[in-house]
């Protein structure tokens, strides 16, 4: 239950931070008005609607790239804005995205070695 764990011993003064970080853990984003988040949610809702529309409307060759791009946009929006990565320390972005990019790199390479994704 890491959520309730405390730092046991943060005896250290903040010192010249050697890892780049901008902004503080709390601060700026905390003061974003609720309407800001509602707006983002609206955009997300629209994108989702667009995505789902591919079920009814044929986008032809654009289908796959469009879906993937929309997915990536949604992902990044939630991560940057709702999860505050954009406002928070770069270290967090770096930790999360290194996991994500590693996962993408490794698993895409792995699927590629099968040459086909799903033979039917």
């Amino acid at each position, binding site marked *: 239950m*890491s*959520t*309730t*764990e*405390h*730092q046991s*011993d*943060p*005896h*250290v*003064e*903040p*010192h010249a*931070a*050697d890892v780049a*970080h901008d902004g*503080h*853990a*709390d601060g700026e984003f*905390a003061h974003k008005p*609720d309407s800001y*988040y*509602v707006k983002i*949610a609206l955009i*997300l*809702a629209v994108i*989702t609607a667009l*995505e*789902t529309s*591919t*079920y009814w409307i044929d986008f032809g060759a654009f289908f*796959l790239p469009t*879906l*993937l791009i929309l*997915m990536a946009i*949604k*992902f990044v929006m*939630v*991560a940057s804005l*709702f*999860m505050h990565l954009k406002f928070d*320390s770069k*270290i*967090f972005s770096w*930790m*999360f995205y290194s*996991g*994500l990019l*590693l*996962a*993408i790199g*490794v*698993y895409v390479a*792995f*699927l590629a070695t*099968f040459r086909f*994704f*799903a*033979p*039917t």
Partner: protein
Amino acid sequence: MAVHTPVTDGHDDHGHGAAHATSTGLSNNKMAMWLFLGSECLLFGGLISTYMLYRGRHPADLGPDQIYDIPFTSVSSFILLMSSLTMVLAVSAASMKDDRRTNLWLTITALLGATFVGGQVYEFTSFYREGLGFTSSLFSSSFYTLTGFHGVHVTVGIIMLMALVGINKRGRIPGQKAEVVELVGLYWHFVDVVWIIIFTLVYLIPS
């Protein structure tokens, strides 16, 4: 009741969530959560890849194209997406120390999450009735494994949200209240972004 007098020599040696006392100035808890989420990327990546490899391996009449109910899943995906909004509002309320609204938004988030899980349970049962058991085909096993893992994550999130509300009501969140809400929020949003990927790769892109 003994009162602790802060030590004045600059060594803050007991620290309750003193986010600024760390070498990077960042909170331990939050960093731990982000690391954990980075790690989770490889977990879900593995499950998604397994699904991608096997999604075409099924009897002709029991594949993704026959089974999925896109309109239904779209609605439940939308609900999960909106729970991210209510979650961020809870975090925002918590950071303004507004307990009442924090609890309200947390509760709504939990309810939306529960709706999503309910939808998933419904989806699973209807698939099952159509003949798609966990062991029916490679497609079904990898589908249920992937979405099941996600469902378990959501469920754990719901438990955390409700626990948060419960503890919050008794004024018992240890440490910094806002941060705990934020941590649960990060987890919750992560579960949501994973679904964003699953929804696109699994449901929308036909095999």
